[in-house]
């Protein structure tokens, strides 16, 4: 990705409902373009990826879910906390069998409830393991790892695992595990992207989130402005539309030339919609200015009137590619 030449791990966060999962998926496709291999990971147990790609629920196993233009591949993984903990117990304590017994007792859930930091370090740890994994000892298994992450309100805590485990064991495997996670997440290998709508609340939350991430020395990538309504009218037309000064008779005669009947009902509808649209666009422009002031790269994705299906994802990823994401 041109703005982050070295970033392998792309973390996607944002206020709930702004399109994190959608943007993460479109990004995974865009980055896979031209023969790359990417993996899209989710960590919240929602099976959002399966729903989006219209496949059966994903197991805790890497699966190919889509192809990208130019021979790329998109893989997916739904990380499950319990499985990640069992992996961990196996890796550090050779405790796989005891692990399954613990799971039956509900102990895994219990441990991650007492210490939410443990859950986070396991989940981020899995992402970092995938980032670092080598194929045949030289190539990375994946060119890019895209993480559909928790929402903005929790992202800093989620990623800043060192702080998270500081209340836990001060020495030993968990601490060194956290250190190795931080060596990926807080480095040039990572970029944290925030998805927002051009509305007051999500924009405010995004700006607060950026400050928090920066204060924790975590690498902020770009802002993805989602579901924008491309302006149909220019600035001057918008002023006139809001003031009710669009040239009614001119519009009437053009409607007649277009093959429709210029009823009052139709003209009123068009003028009202123009005013409504203009107010909305002006609001979006104001919010976009607030974001621009932060000086981060901004990518804009339109609201697709037909909603998001597989075709819509490819459409968004093509827009990303056209704005320079993915490159080569």
């Amino acid at each position: 990705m041109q703005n982050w030449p070295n970033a392998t791990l792309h973390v996607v966060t944002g206020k709930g409902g702004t399109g994190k999962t959608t943007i993460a998926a479109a990004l995974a496709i865009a980055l896979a373009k031209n023969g790359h291999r990417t993996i899209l990971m989710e960590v919240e147990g929602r099976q959002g990826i399966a729903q989006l790609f219209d496949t059966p629920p994903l197991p805790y196993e890497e699966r190919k879910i889509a192809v990208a233009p130019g021979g790329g591949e998109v893989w997916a993984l739904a990380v499950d906390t319990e499985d990640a903990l069992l992996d961990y117990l196996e890796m550090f304590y050779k405790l796989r069998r005891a692990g399954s017994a613990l799971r039956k007792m509900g102990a895994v859930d219990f441990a991650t409830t007492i210490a939410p930091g443990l859950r986070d370090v396991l989940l981020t740890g899995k992402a970092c393991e995938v980032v670092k994994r080598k194929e045949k000892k030289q190539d990375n298994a994946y060119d890019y790892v895209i993480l559909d992450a928790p929402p903005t309100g929790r992202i800093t805590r989620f990623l800043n695992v060192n702080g998270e485990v500081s209340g836990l064991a001060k020495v030993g495997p968990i601490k060194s595990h956290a250190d190795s996670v931080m060596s990926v997440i807080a480095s040039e290998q990572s970029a944290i992207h925030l998805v927002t709508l051009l509305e007051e609340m999500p924009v405010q939350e995004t700006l607060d989130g950026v400050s928090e991430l920066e204060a924790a020395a975590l690498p902020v990538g770009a802002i993805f402005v989602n579901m924008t309504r491309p302006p149909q009218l220019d600035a001057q037309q918008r002023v006139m539309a809001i003031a009710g000064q669009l040239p009614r008779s001119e519009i009437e005669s053009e409607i007649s030339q277009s093959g429709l009947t210029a009823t009052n009902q139709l003209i009123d509808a068009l003028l009202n919609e123009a005013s409504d649209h203009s107010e909305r666009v002006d609001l979006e422009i104001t919010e976009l200015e607030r974001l621009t002031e932060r000086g981060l790269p901004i990518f804009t994705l339109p609201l697709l009137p037909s909603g998001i299906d597989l075709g819509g994802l490819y459409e968004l990823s093509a827009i990303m590619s056209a704005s320079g994401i993915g490159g080569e």
Partner: protein
Amino acid sequence: MTLDIDAILTNPEKHIIVCTGSGGVGKTTTAAALGLRAAELGRNVCVLTIDPARRLAQAMGLTELDNTPRAVAGIANGSLSAMMLDMKRTFDEVVESHSDPERAEQILSNPFYQALSSSFAGTQEYMAMEKLGQLRAQSQWDLIIVDTPPSRNALDFLDAPARLGSFLDGRLIRIITAPARGAGRGIGRIAAMGFGIFTNVLSKLLGAQVLADVGNFVADIDTTFGGFRERADATYALLKDSGTEFIVVAAPERDALREAAYFVERLNQDSMPLGGLILNRVQEVPETGLTQDQVLAAAQKLTAEGRGPLTAALLELHAQRMEIKERQKHLAMRFTAAHPDVAVQPIPAMAQDVHDLAGLREIGAALANQGITW
């Protein structure tokens, strides 16, 4: 089926309205708008909000975060108070009111308690329930409208308190925190061996200090107040009462409606009273008798002939909105097909955010508009 919201708001038997739905759909806005409307219809209302937008909070006078309701000025007829939930403060108050100062101090300074009260999954829902119970007990308001936390999903609001409650009162927590009492008490020997591994692995993972903190916390609260689970159950019972009404809010989007459907089914299953579904931010399009294709064809004709770019743009805008509306209506119809008994009330998307009393009144009027054409 349409929703007669004014009938609910003015029904003296109704004392609690819960607004729920997935994140960002307009729960807080709806709760505030319902509160304002009910007050102006003569009720004495308290709105318990969780996360109002900054400007909305200011408009409602929620500038001081003292975790108690404050009167909102400028209300005709009844009265409106509003507060914003401070979950940590609410939890602290529960602790303080149930224990002597010394023990309260011990609990409040326990690191496990501090994590529990400020960042645990489920604590916000638990404390929202707790606060609701407190407000209801004060009997100063005859209607309390509760906004719900921005949970992962709407069902969390119903389930998180009980889940957290049974965790805190649970078997496992007692076993790891009372090794001296013997893990084997009441359980078979094999299970006892399992618990041996369990405590062993836990202390490896979490460190001995964390387990000690949990142990101290459990010992301290044990003697001070009844089970957490009982408290959560009591408020849950309040929600099942016929004086309560649930309003489910959804955006006219697939995911939000799927969540809403889960929630509706759950309310049904638990025989909880459902008022109806608010379909918030629908795309309104004035009726012109034209189809989307006709409108688009007209726009294309103008563009092809190089005439009237402004008119072509207006037609395209109109066609786009028709498409959005069609998709939304289709989703709404699918919801109704699956849940024919649920009253649905559409609320138009306003061009601006809703951040003052005038905006809330407008939403309130839309909520009560039974003739809304959509």
